Each structure stands twice: as C-alpha cells, then as structure tokens.
C-alpha cells in the first residue's frame, strides 16, 4: 500500500470546521432521493464512526445522538430510533478507537463493519419491537458497502491533516 502505516506519521491537528463540513455533507448524502435503498450506505453513520475513532474527544456521543434525532425527524420515523443507533455506534467506535488505528486500512474496515452492523441491528430490533415487518437481509447490505468505502473515506477525510505544516511554495499541493 502506498500509504504509510497509520500512527507513524504525525498529522496536523484536525480542523473542527472540516469535521462539521463532512458531517453536513454526509447528512446531505443520506437525504438524497435514492430510488432504491438496497445497498446505499448510511454515509452519516460512517462519518460519525470515522470521527469517533479519530477524534473521540471532539465527537463524543452527544453529537451523534443529536444527528440521529435529525435523521429521525427528516425521515419521519419513530423519534429516537436513529438517535439510539448512532449513540451505540459512537460508543462502540470510541471504545475501540485506541486499538483500531494500529491495523491497516483493510483490517480497519472489518472492525468498522462489525460496528455498523451492530448499529443497524439496534435499529432493526427497535422496529421489530414496535411491530414492523422483517425487511429482508438486504437491509444489512448498506453496512457492507459502507465498510468497503472505509479505506477511501479514511484517505479523503485525513487529507487536510496530511498537508505539510510549513507550506512549500514549489509543491503543487
């Protein structure tokens, strides 16, 4: 892999504005009119997971909870359903945050897959308790797509922190 192993390079401190921007973009992605939802990843969950692993103290659990409320209101589902799922997701991500980054990107995505599946399972349980039908195994497809996108997402979201601290005028980036 062209990228050096994570943890070996000293990154710049994260820009909070960039975090907010990525979260808003992910929210917008989730609110697009998808014609069929089979296999469309929950980008917001993925971005929350990313920032909880990278910046557990900045992201916390309260922000994912509020974002979950936003998703509930926007989708017209039971209030608190996504909030619970995202809180659990953030908690799991924060608790593995010290360990995950020692792995390579592919091994990381496997662990992220487990976290995403757990969060999806929480939603499923809530809905089945309220009396919804079982939506089929396709329901979990989005998690796999999301986990597959993890390496790409990591590279993109870390790009601003990989810039050199002192700007070199002769370098294009």
């Amino acid at each position, binding site marked *: 892999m062209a990228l050096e192993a994570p943890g070996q390079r000293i990154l710049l401190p994260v820009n909070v504005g960039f975090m907010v921007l990525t979260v*808003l973009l992910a*929210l*917008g*992605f*989730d*609110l*697009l*009119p*998808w*014609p*069929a*939802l089979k296999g469309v990843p*929950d980008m917001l969950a993925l971005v929350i997971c990313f920032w909880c692993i990278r910046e*557990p*103290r900045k992201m*916390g*659990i*309260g922000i994912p*909870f509020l974002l*979950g*409320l*936003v*998703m*509930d*209101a*926007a*989708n*017209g*589902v*039971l*209030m*608190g*359903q996504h*909030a*619970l799922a995202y*809180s*659990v997701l*953030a*908690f799991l991500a*924060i*608790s593995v945050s010290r360990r995950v980054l020692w792995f390579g990107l592919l091994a990381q995505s496997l662990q992220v897959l487990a976290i995403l599946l757990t969060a999806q399972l929480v939603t499923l349980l*809530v*809905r089945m308790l*309220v009396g*919804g*039908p079982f*939506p*089929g195994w*396709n*329901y979990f497809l989005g998690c796999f797509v999301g986990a597959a996108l993890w390496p790409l997402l990591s590279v993109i979201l870390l790009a601003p922190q990989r810039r050199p601290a002192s700007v070199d005028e002769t370098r294009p980036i």
Partner: protein
Amino acid sequence: MEHSPPPFFNRGPAPVVRVTFFAIVSIFLMVTDARFRYMEPLRQAISTVVYPVQRTALAPVEAGGRIGDYFQSIADLQQENEQLRAGKLKDAQDLLTLDALRAENTQLRGLLDARQRAKSEAIFAEIMYAGRDPFSRTVIIDKGTTQGVVRGQPVIDTGGVIGQVTRVQPLVSEVTLVTHKNHSVPVQVVRNGLRAVAFGLGDAESMELRFLPLNAPVEPGDEIVTSGIDGLYPPGLPVGKVARVDRESTQTFAKVLVAPAGGTGQYRQVLVLRPVGEAPPAPPVMEEPPPKKEPAKVKRQKLRQGQG
C-alpha cells in the same frame, strides 16, 4: 475527593455512562413518540432547520437533471410533440362534449339532490427524497403547511393514486404510499363496479384486495379505481391493475394481488389533491381501557337527583 484525578486530566463522564444516558433518553423519546405522539413540535422544528441542508443536497441532482433535459435530442422532443398532438386531437372530441356533459351532470345531480362532486383543487409538488426506512413506504414532498397542504390529502401522479399526506410540516410533508403496510384505499373494479379495499403489503410492487369471497368476479387485468366512498380520495382515480387472483378452496377469501398504477417509485412530480369531503378523525393510537367507573357516577348522579 482526594482520589479524583487532577483537573487537567478530567475527561468528564466515562463513555459507558454517557452512552447509557443517551440510550435512556432515546428510549424515552421513542416511547413518548410511539404512545403519546408528543414529539410532533420537536419533529417540525428539526425538519425546518434541516430543510436548507436538504435543498443544498438536492441542488446538484436537480442541476444534473436540468443539464440532461437540455441535451435531450430534438428528435425525442419532436416525437413527443407529435404524440402529444395526436393525443390532443383524440381528446378534443371528448373535451368538446365535456362542458355540456358537466352542465347536464350538475343539473341531474341537483335534481337527485345528490352531493355535488367538488372539482378538487390541486397543489403541484415534487418528491424530495424517499424516507430512508425500509420498514415504511413514505416519500417526502417539498410542500408543507405554508403552501396549504393539510393532513389526509390524496396525492396522485400521471399514472394514478400514489398515496396520502400523513404528516405535514411547515415546508415539507410526508406522503404514505398506497403500498405502505398499513395503508388502505377503498376501490372499485371498473368492469363490474365491485367494491373492495386495497391494502398495501409493504413492498414496492403490490397491493392486495382483501376480504373478497372466492367467487368474486375479479380477473387478472381488471382496472381498479378509487370508489370515493371514504370521502377522501376523489372517485375514479386509477389505483392499479389486478395482477394475480388465487382462489384456493382451503382459504376463506380469494387472494387478489394488484399492481399499483401510480409510479410509487419512479416519478418526482406529483399533485396533491384536496380531499372531497372532510377527513375523518384519526383513530386513537392505543385502545383506551373501557371506562369502569361509569356505574358509580350514574349512581352518584341518581343519588344527587334524589336529594335535589
């Protein structure tokens, strides 16, 4: 206090504590929402705040659509134009007689003292996005209370009925599709006027006519339209076409599957119609326990009456 960490290492409550707190809050919210429906103001407030994000997210999609329209070849447009012209000629004949028929109809209905069929007004709306929830089949449209949408309005597209407005917010509203699991439409078979109720099944492609006897005169290919007896859907709107009829003698009722006529998944432009009559009150969410104190009150009243 001596054992607490020095303040510069203080990280607040542990993640376990925090996640427990937020989980309890979410469960509280869910119970409140499911049982008492107290969350509507909060929902409306959040949805109004998120509206700009939604519109911004939609902007590239809309721009892409517009660019696509621009580059649509002239041949396509000409062909469509010809088709439309032919269609218009065909309709012209009917349209010419329509006015006369309408006047006659009004007169006859007046004579019969029947309720006038109100010409329903319509609000043009666009589907912003489909609810990201595989459990319920809903779409969000870009018109809300500010544009005069009220709960219970039927929504149609060029194919036919697609659903009903179930939740209104200031700028957007939520439409439950006819294929939703708990949605039902009173319908009628065009061929013989047989009345039935079409229930959604929760998947995209089918509805079911329930409680029809095994010998019900329904055949695959029959057109199904709204009957209008609920006072909500105007009568005569296409709902679907019978796709399959299973008559098993072991069952009490025939199993009639209907393919919806409205594009419940395809189109973006819809019309929100005004309901023909007043919307009936929503049924209570939970059955309340039957009042048991009734006899006592009656007795007390009787006593009071006896005293007075």
